[in-house]
């Protein structure tokens, strides 16, 4: 890494951040998130319900973007764990749209076909979107079955626990047996055509 020798006395020389301004303006322009106006008050992170599971706190996501460390953001778990509860945006004094920034980052990782730090979250999103692309509506039953098959196999621990839950839901009349969809599908085909050509969904 360039300049590494100069920092050899520092214990974390290899991790040193070399700020770059090139990403901030690009991502703000593309996403509309407005990350440039963050002054680091951390209200976003104090209100976030999911920090306990995140590897980067929300304010750190913004800060890393300001410093141009885009790779760090694309590889973090946080962007997949954000539940879009909108608390951060609502309380931000500068109206930084963090949920939008998280979405922009997950979309970027997904469209490049790169591995997600939270593979299962991405898998579920993909199967969900596949279902929408097929019918125009989501059929919860087959979506869950498809997800469980891909993650643990039909007889995995998780699949069995979910099958039990599924049976209880079925008995309570909370499972639909046949999928529904929109009658008109021309718009659906047109909408997902481009995405499919790119192999996205």
């Amino acid at each position: 890494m360039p300049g590494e020798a100069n920092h050899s006395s520092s214990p974390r020389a290899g991790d040193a951040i070399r700020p770059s301004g090139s990403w901030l303006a690009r991502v703000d322009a593309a996403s509309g998130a407005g990350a440039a106006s963050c002054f680091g008050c951390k209200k976003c992170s104090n209100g976030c319900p999911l920090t306990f599971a995140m590897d980067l706190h929300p304010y750190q996501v913004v800060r890393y973007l300001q410093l141009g460390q885009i790779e760090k953001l694309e590889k973090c778990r946080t962007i997949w764990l954000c539940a879009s509860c909108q608390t951060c945006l609502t309380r931000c004094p500068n109206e930084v749209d963090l949920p939008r920034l998280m979405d922009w980052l997950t979309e970027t990782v997904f469209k490049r076909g790169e591995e997600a730090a939270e593979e299962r979250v991405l898998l579920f999103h993909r199967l969900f979107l596949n279902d929408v692309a097929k019918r125009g509506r989501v059929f919860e039953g087959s979506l869950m079955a498809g997800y469980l098959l891909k993650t643990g196999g039909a007889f995995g621990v998780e699949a069995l626990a979910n099958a039990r839950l599924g049976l209880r839901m079925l008995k309570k009349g909370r499972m639909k047996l046949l999928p529904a969809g929109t009658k008109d599908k021309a718009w659906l085909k047109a909408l997902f055509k481009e995405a499919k050509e790119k192999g996205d969904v």
Partner: protein
Amino acid sequence: MFKVSYYPGCSLEATARDYAESIAGVAGLMDVKFNELKDWNCCGATAAHSLDHRVTLNLAARNLALAQGQAQPLVVPCALCFNRLASARHELLEDSSLIIDEIARLGTDYQSVQVLELNEFFTTPQMIALAESRLEQDLTGLKPVCYYGCQGQRPPAVTGKKDYENPQGLDRLLSGLGAEVLDWPFKTDCCGASHAVARPELVFTLVARLYQWALERGANCLVTGCQMCQANLDMYQEQISRQMGREVYLPVFYFTELMGLALGHQQTNKWLGRHLVSPRLLLENSGLPRGVWERL
């Protein structure tokens, strides 16, 4: 007779059938006619906005187009669908260049569509007064905390909510119907929503926190107007209770179910019978009439 448009969303056809049925029941009792949008499509939910901004906008744009020229407002019972439609509308008013021709052709007068969350629709002073005037069965004995969740409230620039940090609508409605509604600080906290599938342990942590606070306040049930909140609070209660090392018994009602109960709808027990946490014991101990709980 109030005539409005209605967008149910995919969950109301399956896991939230109890919600859908109770909405239809309450509509009859409250002189409301919900006109379901013809051939509506999925809002795309979390998946679409996480993976493809263009797709999420287009999915919403089609539904908004279908609502143009129909009775307003467009009432949405699912908090996530509501948020997706309202967010897209907000953005489309500024810029609709991502909308494909096949959908733009259906109409682009997004300004004319007024997207409203169901619980807001039923908690105006006028609606609450109407519900109170038709009260048949006091909800005595029920001590709920109202759980509004996040998607219906935030961000206020999109949802149009004024009391988004401490919403009051359901509290007022249910107090008016005789329940002893308790205040609590978790009204709009997140339940983890669709993480229940891929990262259930996150949802369990968030929901355990909600249970703990509800119990601490002395609540004996939870009331919600969001089918994801209801599912996360109702479906895993046994499991989460075990993890907490504490016995949790908190039936999770949709506010429309309690309206049905209070206004004397005959099908109320059918809706309540679909819950995984049976409210029977609670209703029986609350001294509510046998007809409401005996077949649960």
